[in-house]
């Protein structure tokens, strides 16, 4: 152990540097001034100044998701910490590794209702994977290293370290990362091989199998995605993905059925409903995926691979649970499949693919677009063109806000590789996409980073345009502007008797002028003939851009499984629920 004595603030910076941190997202304030002072005196770590602490956490999430590293946040006490809470909850729900440092009032003031004091560890306890209040400077380095270990190990998540101001000033001893071993936390990553053997045996006998993959595959690293591709091709089984898992398996592959769930494809939902063996890799049977639990995939045997034992049998009872890292389990499954020389039941599988082909022929994502130059742009078409005009590049990262545009982006943009798609899946945080894109662009300065947004969501963190301008981050904000909180409007139309309570976007700003006011570039497309040119100009512009695409106001997002319905009760576009029939009470209570 080194006997070099450093101040707490210096220990923080040295710990971050030793953890390989290159950039932190933050906002200064009274209780973190010593850390900002130490930051000023060094060059190893960059700081990106956001305009709201929530955005700092989302930016760190975008950074983490696009790089596989831990995202780091630095905010002050009180309002700094409370503003970060939404971001922390978002990271918890979507299992994103984030370390968030919060300033705290001096230890002798804690509990005194001091200026900008709040019970940060109390408030963040349920919205973090773990949190710490460090009252002794000699525990600071150890705690930081532990926090990084906890954030990235097992099922990743956010960790808060609350550091009182006097601890930042006090002198103490530094401890290097390799000297820190966690006392208790040892997540299981290697699977029980007997379970893997059982699973492969079940898979080899399957007649109507399906892979159901989720964000766990992305979190397990790029190798897990490669192994997934290998296993899916080896078996010849169809593969679907959750919202969070898009990109782990290439969307262009014939074996990919598209996204599953409430706004997933017809073929993937019906295949999930009708399968006889479901192989869940790193997904958690979220209610957005399962729909009505009692009618969820009633005839199937289920294999569930998850690194978090608490995800297993939480809502859906499974037959073969396998706790482990997705990459380790996939590798083991491939090895066993090959060792046993397994062959899928060809005749049964052909029949299953023929059935899937019939479902595919329904073309559930189809929409009508009038192609005359003065035509009104359909929102789906705007997103489809965005995808088509950026196809062929491998450096396109897409983030989204939350709502209809998010679902259309998930449906119409084909994701070919992991870590290129960032969306708020679990918490559904409007205002996520712009700051997340900021974090992605910081990590990938030359990439094309597009935030697909709605005109309502973008207003929730619009101040972050200033961050883009300050750091010359050429993020593109692609607003699909239908003048409604579209998903709210859709539910009100389908389930609440067309009573459009508070869902119209009144008094919208002029987004082009707004962009210019921030020092960014503003573009607008109001009719079909302008769309491609505007997207082209957006791509060419090496500056932050806001694109305001005015689209058809009343388009709804289909397919849709209404709340409380089963997968086989999926609605396609053109089938409209109206009036009384549309409001089954048990469905209405499910958001």
């Amino acid at each position, binding site marked *: 152990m080194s006997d070099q004595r450093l101040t707490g603030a210096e220990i923080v910076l040295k710990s971050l540097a030793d953890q390989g941190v290159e950039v932190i997202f933050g906002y200064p304030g009274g209780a973190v001034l010593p850390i900002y002072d130490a930051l000023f005196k060094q060059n190893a770590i960059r700081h990106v100044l956001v305009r709201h602490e929530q955005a700092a956490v989302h930016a760190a999430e975008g950074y983490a998701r696009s790089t596989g590293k831990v995202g780091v946040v630095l905010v002050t006490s009180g309002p700094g910490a409370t503003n970060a809470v939404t971001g922390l909850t978002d990271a918890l729900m979507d299992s994103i590794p984030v370390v968030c440092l919060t300033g705290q009032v001096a230890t002798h003031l804690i509990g005194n209702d001091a200026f900008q004091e709040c019970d940060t560890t109390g408030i963040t*306890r349920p919205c973090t994977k773990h949190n710490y209040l460090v009252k002794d400077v000699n525990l600071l380095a150890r705690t930081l290293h532990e926090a990084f270990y906890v954030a990235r190990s097992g099922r990743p998540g956010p960790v808060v370290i609350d550091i009182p101001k006097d601890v930042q000033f006090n002198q103490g001893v530094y401890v290097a990362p390799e000297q820190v071993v966690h*006392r208790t936390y040892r997540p299981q990553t290697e699977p029980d091989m007997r379970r893997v053997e059982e699973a492969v045996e079940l898979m080899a006998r399957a007649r109507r199998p399906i892979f159901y993959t989720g964000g766990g595959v992305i979190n397990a690293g790029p190798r897990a995605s490669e192994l997934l591709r290998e296993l899916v091709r080896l078996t010849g089984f169809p593969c679907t993905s959750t919202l969070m898992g898009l990109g782990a398996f290439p969307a262009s592959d014939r074996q990919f059925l598209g996204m599953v769930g409430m706004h997933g494809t017809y073929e993937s939902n019906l295949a999930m409903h009708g399968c006889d063996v479901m192989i869940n890799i790193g997904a958690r049977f979220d209610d957005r995926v399962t729909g009505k639990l009692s009618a969820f995939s009633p005839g199937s045997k289920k294999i569930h691979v998850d690194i978090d034992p*608490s995800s297993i049998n*939480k809502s859906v*009872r499974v037959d073969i649970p396998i706790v482990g890292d997705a990459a380790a389990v996939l590798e083991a499954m491939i090895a066993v499949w090959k060792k046993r020389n397994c062959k899928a039941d060809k005749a049964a599988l052909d029949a299953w693919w023929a059935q899937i082909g019939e479902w595919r022929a329904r073309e559930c994502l189809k929409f009508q677009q009038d192609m005359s130059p003065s035509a009104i742009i359909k929102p789906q078409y705007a997103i489809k063109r965005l995808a088509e005009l950026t196809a062929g590049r491998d450096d396109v990262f897409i983030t989204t806000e939350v709502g209809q545009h998010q679902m259309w982006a998930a449906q119409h943009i084909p994701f070919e590789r992991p870590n290129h798609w960032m969306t708020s899946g679990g918490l559904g945080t409007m205002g996520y996409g712009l700051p997340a894109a900021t974090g992605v662009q910081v990590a990938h300065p030359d990439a094309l980073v597009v935030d697909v947004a709605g005109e309502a969501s973008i207003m929730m963190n619009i101040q972050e345009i200033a961050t883009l301008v300050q750091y010359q981050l050429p993020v593109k904000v692609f607003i699909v502007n239908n003048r409604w909180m579209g998903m709210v409007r859709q539910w009100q139309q389908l389930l609440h008797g067309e009573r459009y309570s508070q869902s119209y976007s009144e008094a919208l700003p002029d987004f082009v002028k707004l962009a210019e006011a921030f020092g960014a570039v503003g573009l607008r497309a109001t009719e079909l003939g302008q769309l491609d040119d505007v997207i082209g100009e957006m791509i060419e512009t090496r500056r932050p851009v806001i694109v305001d695409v005015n689209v058809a106001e009343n388009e709804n997002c289909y397919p849709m499984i209404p709340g409380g319905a089963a997968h086989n009760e999926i609605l396609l576009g053109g089938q409209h629920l109206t009036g009384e029939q549309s409001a089954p009470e048990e469905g209405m209570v499910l958001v």
Partner: protein
Amino acid sequence: MPPIEPIERHTISVLVDNEPGVLARVIGLFSGRGYNIESLTVAEVDTYGRRSRITIVTSGSRMIIEQIKAQLDRLVPVHKVLDLTDEGSFVERELALIKVAATGDKRIEALRIADIFRARAVDSTLESFVFEVTGSSEKLNAFIGLMAPLGLVDVSRTGVAAIARGKEGFLGEAILAGE
């Protein structure tokens, strides 16, 4: 609808690092996820390793009980979780201090019942007793029920402490290395 699962009562031991906030994490988990707590006790049991044992009595369907254990186990400061109810036979005890204020026949009857329950009088005035009684929660409930018409004025209970029967230890070797 799937058949409704029967509700089971389970006694669970949790070994945790004795650090600030650890009890709040456990309690917050139960309240946040809507699980029941029938009884909860906590005390440091390993002063050398600074570890505490939390004993929780909870109830729920089999699926919920499994969830509770998995959720407890993934809390970072948790060393291990043991479901005593599932592991076989175990001993479960609770202590209560019970104050009865009475004179005359009621006072004599209270003493007589206390004797049957092997409760000890640990404080006495001419108008009151404080009884100390240990046993299963059911025994304590029965005793308190009998005291109610005899002048019961106050009750303080510890909650359940429990330990598995047989030679196996829960704390492991660390406790033996202490002091």
